[in-house]
């Protein structure tokens, strides 16, 4: 890029300066992320007596293949439900005509965003338990007999917590994307006879799809890595991989199997990322 000698010297020194500037950050990333990542990868592929081995993976699949499937099902269904809830909220915010409904929703929907997962899990424990707030409310309203009350503190509780916690995040991004669309493209649909629901599904969402996908991929990875919610809301078997990893380490000091489960988690989130990237490439490749 530099044409003359003096500029060349200057740009070199600038390059060195830039390297110097980012060095602390780079060192931090290397020490706190890259080193542990490589270490856990190596550990996952190392036999107890040393040398390359798939033993840890064998053990992980033998003991936890049910939990791997459980984790995928929980996270995928949570993402699907989160998407539906976020579309409903963002759609109402964008196309709603009742100022009261829109105003109230706008004021309320972001609250769970500011609650940590562990607090959300604790709230859900008291809300979804057999004698929890939800069942008590149903009983007092006469909708449910006390004997019929069941606890939702199992896979359903995890999904409810994840959806409740992640919906505001996805809705926030999606509502922003919908608000930035050319309003006339939505009006054109209604003008030709489309109901608001059809406008949302056929005209607005396809235009905001890249944003929705980013929000869902980020939610997917977040849900995959949460330990507190499956541990507190659903303690028993089957459970999610994060709980299994914690258990392998805390109970047995079995880092190899825990790291193998970690690698499996990377692969699952990489799967989500690949799906997203392929969608993005297909869009870019379109004529």
């Amino acid at each position, binding site marked *: 890029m530099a044409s003359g000698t003096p500029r060349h010297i200057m740009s070199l020194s600038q390059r060195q300066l830039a390297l110097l500037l980012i060095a602390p950050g780079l060192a931090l990333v290397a020490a706190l992320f890259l080193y542990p990542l490589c270490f856990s990868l190596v550990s996952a592929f190392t036999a107890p007596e040393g040398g390359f081995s798939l033993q840890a993976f064998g053990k992980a699949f033998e003991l936890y293949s049910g939990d791997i499937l459980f984790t995928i099902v929980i996270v995928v269904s949570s993402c699907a439900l989160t998407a539906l809830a976020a579309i409903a909220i963002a759609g109402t915010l964008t196309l709603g005509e009742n100022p009261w409904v829109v105003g109230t929703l706008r004021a309320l929907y972001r609250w769970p965003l500011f609650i940590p997962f562990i607090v959300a899990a604790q709230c859900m424990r008291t809300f979804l338990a057999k004698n929890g707030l939800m069942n008590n409310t149903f009983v007092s309203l006469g909708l449910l007999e006390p004997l019929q009350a069941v606890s939702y503190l199992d896979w359903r509780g995890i999904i409810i917590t994840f959806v409740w916690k992640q919906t505001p995040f996805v809705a926030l991004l999606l509502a922003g994307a919908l608000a930035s669309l*050319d309003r*006339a*493209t939505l*009006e*054109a*649909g*209604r*003008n*030709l*006879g*489309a*109901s608001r629901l*059809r406008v949302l599904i*056929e*005209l607005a969402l*396809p*235009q905001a*799809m890249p944003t929705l996908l980013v929000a869902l991929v980020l939610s997917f990875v977040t849900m995959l890595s949460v330990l507190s919610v499956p541990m507190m809301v659903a303690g028993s078997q089957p459970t999610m991989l994060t709980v299994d990893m914690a258990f392998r380490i805390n109970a047995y000091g079995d880092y190899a199997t825990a790291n193998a489960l970690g690698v499996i988690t990377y692969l699952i989130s990489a799967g989500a990322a690949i799906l997203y990237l392929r969608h993005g490439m297909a869009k870019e490749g*379109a*004529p």
Partner: protein
Amino acid sequence: MQAETHGVSSAGAAIQVRDLHVAYGGTPVLHGVSLDFAPGSFTALLGSSGCGKTTLLRALCGFVPVRSGSIVVGDRDVALLPPEKRDMAMVFQSYALWPHMTVLQNIGYGLKLRGTAKAEIAAKVASLLTMLGLGGYEQRKVTALSGGQRQRVALGRALAVDPRILLLDEPLSNLDAKIRMAMRHEIRAIQQRLGVTAIHVTHDREEAMTMADRLVIMQAGRIAQVGTPEEVYDRPASAFIANFMGAENVLPVHVVRNEDGTAVSAGHAVARLAHDDATALPLGEAVAYFRDDVASLAAPDAMPQGDLLVPGRIAARSYPGGLYRYRVEAVGRQITVDDAARHEPGAAVGLRIPLRRLHIFPAAEAATAA
């Protein structure tokens, strides 16, 4: 969803707007607008920014809630119906095409909503594209089209549903001048061929005059004048309209009526009008409006010959092509005049203005218009 389509589906519908009030929040924008649109007519809503013309159009198609008043299409009041039930097709200023759809999907969307079979949609879209000069463009992405092509697709999308009413919201303002001229004639020709009732919002006077058979001039949320292009151009109802329609030269005059007739004076220049021509003129202090091409330049001592001959001095000259354009200082005002002859700046001239071509309004009204 489809309104009663008596007879030919594309024949226009009549619209009666009565005492329409519209407000944004607490701010009133339309103050009781009443207007009739005959079937098959082409009306242009014309006015400066913020006059309420776009609001009126958006109230007609349901994007702006109506506070009171009625909008009767055929024989039903649509003022409280949602936009999708009004059966009016709109062409937007930004084209508002759906970027994730092809040309075929964009134009065919309204037909798809009406449950039309795929083959029928394809045939209809193909014939529309041929009519719009875009034959064979079905599978193109709309993002790959030029501005003029996009506007044609937007027009095709509106026409595909055989609307009885076509609303045009400044559809040409994003196009370059040459394409705009061509599109004016195309839209007008298509509207006449289909017989659809068209309402066109624009702030471009020439566009309105060349396309519409009736102009509605709006000012501050009210209708200022309704008439054919000739009527509005030649007989503006107020100082505001005269100015808006291009009579931008302003000359303070004094009007006196006696037994000899009516005398109009500007400074020391005086001209007389016979009684029958002058009955409508306001008496006393008044302001005359006229266009650049109405006045001409003469020698300062030329014979008035019934015209107002106002002495002045040339302040500047330019040559826009064909004629010279002069800025003349006369009676303390700057007047723009087009004239074929070449005069030097600084020269004393007589500004010859035919009295009949002046639009004269009372000074008080002119003050509010300015």
